[in-house]
């Protein structure tokens, strides 16, 4: 066991730190131009798509370097690297693995530059957890595919230029995974309609998307016909790095401790409430476990082994913690908890009220806890499928 960095890794860390010293003003002192400026600079450093191969414009960063970069950025509360979220998370990796040369050249640089957003059309009204049952119909007509059907829960559909879409090309009823094809669809295609859905916090971040004879050129198919499931799985596997998404949780915990000191509850600062104190450090203990689990997974990867279902461990933690932190945030605020932005007793302009209603994005959006538990029980413990 040894947590030391090699001299090269240290040099890289120092480079990151020096960059941050020079280019990242403290939180709160970042002006209106900062965002664009930051995006340009990190792109120049090739830190956007840092894990992608250099041939496609990525940074070719090693696993360790990715961890270092992420850590240093998080420590300094830096904004994200790149702005095309889904493009960077899975569309890009799918393109790199399955895309044609022409597709790569057309799409990858734009993803890195954050020119526009991508959205993800996987879920349907009848196909959520059981994604492979999807029914969105697709037939071939010469050089084009014709799509008819519906998608739902498509995050940021209304602000996206492109969609990565899963459709059913084979309806003969052969194995359900084999009839699925992946298409790249322009959102302003005729016959494509987006209807935003209001969520329980009152905002609309996702939408229903309807397809009526939407024509998609065959050249915009990603992978082979019938290969869509594989394309999706390997894209989602790309998410399965050993690096746990604990930084955001850590940051929120620090802010919650601060909130607890500022908030009065039952006649004294909430930070003096023994129950709340324990819940805060209990959550912090779990976040630390996530960090260290991630290090163990990373060690495995550095030894050349592939990760599999063990990444569900941290996904489950993350989901449960997301809910718990929201609950803690509300309980800290005592009787002010059920008020909303604009009410005088509400702290931080209602941030925590919104936060406490925001967990479904993580908890439901990324595969529900029940599904994560099935994965662990069946693939790791070897219990029979239900």
């Amino acid at each position, binding site marked *: 066991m040894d947590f030391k960095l090699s001299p090269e890794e240290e040099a890289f860390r120092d480079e990151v730190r020096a960059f941050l010293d020079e280019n990242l003003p403290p939180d709160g002192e970042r002006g209106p131009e900062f965002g664009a400026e930051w995006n340009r600079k990190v792109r120049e450093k090739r830190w956007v798509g840092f894990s992608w191969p250099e041939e496609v414009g990525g940074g070719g960063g090693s696993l360790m370097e990715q961890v270092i970069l992420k850590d240093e950025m998080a420590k300094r509360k830096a904004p994200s690297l790149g702005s095309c979220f889904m493009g960077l998370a899975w569309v890009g990796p799918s393109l790199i693995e399955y895309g044609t040369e022409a597709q790569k050249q057309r799409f990858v640089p734009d993803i890195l530059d954050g020119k526009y957003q991508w959205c993800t059309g996987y879920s349907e009204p009848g196909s959520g957890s059981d994604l492979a049952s999807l029914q969105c119909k697709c037939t071939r007509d010469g050089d084009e595919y014709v799509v008819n059907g519906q998608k739902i829960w498509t995050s940021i559909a209304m602000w996206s230029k492109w969609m990565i879409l899963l459709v059913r090309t084979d309806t003969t009823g052969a194995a359900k995974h084999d009839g699925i094809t992946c298409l790249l669809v322009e959102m302003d295609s005729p016959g494509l309609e987006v209807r935003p859905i209001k969520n329980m916090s009152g905002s609309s971040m996702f939408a229903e998307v309807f397809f009526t004879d939407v024509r998609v050129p065959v050249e915009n198919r990603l992978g082979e016909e019938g290969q869509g499931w594989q394309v999706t799985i390997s894209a989602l596997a790309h998410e399965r790095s050993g690096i746990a998404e604990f930084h955001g949780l850590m940051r929120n915990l620090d802010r919650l401790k601060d909130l607890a000191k500022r908030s009065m509850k039952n006649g004294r600062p909430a930070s003096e409430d023994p129950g709340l104190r324990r819940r805060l450090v209990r959550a912090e203990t779990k976040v630390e*476990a996530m960090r260290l689990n991630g290090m163990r997974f990373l060690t495995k990867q550095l030894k050349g082994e592939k990760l599999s279902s063990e990444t569900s*461990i941290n996904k489950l933690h993350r989901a449960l913690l997301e809910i718990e932190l929201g609950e803690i945030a509300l309980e800290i605020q005592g009787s002010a908890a059920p008020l909303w932005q604009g009410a005088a007793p509400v702290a931080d302009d209602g941030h925590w009220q919104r936060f406490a209603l925001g967990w479904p994005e993580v908890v439901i959006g990324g595969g529900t806890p029940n599904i994560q538990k099935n994965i662990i029980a069946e693939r790791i413990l070897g*219990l029979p*499928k239900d």
Partner: protein
Amino acid sequence: MNFGFTEEQELLRAEVRKFLDQNAPLEEVRKIVETPEGFDRHLWNRMGELGWIGLAMPEAHGGVGLDFVTLVVLLEETGRSLFPSPLLSTVIAAHAIQSLGDEAQQARWLPGLADGRAIGSLALLEDNDSLDPADMALRGKADGDDWILSGSKRIVPDAGVADCFVVAFRSGSSPDAISLAVVDKDSVGLSVSDHPVMDLTKRSGQLQLAELRVKSDAILGEAGAAADAVRSLVDLGATLVAAEAVGAAEAALEITTRFAKEREQFDSKIGRFQGVKHPLAEMYVDVESFRSLVYYAAWCLDQGASEAPAASRAASQAKAYAAEAFARIGIDGVQLHGGVGYTDEYDIQLYLKRSKWARPAFGDSDYHYDRLAAQGGL
């Protein structure tokens, strides 16, 4: 960067597992715990010869000189097989002597503790059940260079078989005026008695000290200056108890998973039902997670003074998570077995009892969460 074990450590794991599987499978453990001493002297001595008891004790005094991370490997295995022995007690007592004692004291006690000829135990808890030095009341009165100790230690691990005790006593009125003395079991004024216990694989007892005279050469370090050492021993103890809990909880999960794959109800293996498979998945998540915390705590402890605050934090996190999770694993393990889980015949109940032992040992979850809150800026 490497958050894994070395090849030597993995080899040790395999060797210990083989030794325990051959010599102390659970049928054997059940017999051993019924003997008057509650452990097998013959196996104990062999472990001494193999260098396992003295694994983390200094080479200069009969130990092997390896680190706590390696010791964790050994303890995961002893935990896994619920091996009954005074290993943990002896290792912790030896560490008290090693970290505070001078050369002569180390030379006097460590070689015997390292090879198993002697058994040691750290005596901290009194009637107020507190691990905080400020709450320790067992009184020491200076008499020339000697100290006269009077009072009692209420819960002392392996008291009945220990040859020597490292006893924490109050040597002044300031909260931190605590000293550690090594007290021989045959000392005049000492009476030792055994407690009946729930987990037969973990014995404990109590000490009564009546005007017990301790020579100055048996006081570890400077008199009145051991409070920090006591706190570090709690960190160490918490980490090592949690290390045994990793192995034991993992075994409980394996036993229950195996049962869920065999037992059939409603024309199906019960492991197909989510009411069964989901708690098993949760157990897995918890074991893997407190395992990570334990490994890290051991690593921090190995870094010595440079990482002392980190070690204390990591130890608390490891023990807090382990105590809580293992307790639930014990209960769920029995529950998922149905009626047979409640029988003496099935092994799962042995793990439930072990979880009851592990929970308070060197601080339960609440104790450690409170410590973390106080140290973590709340």
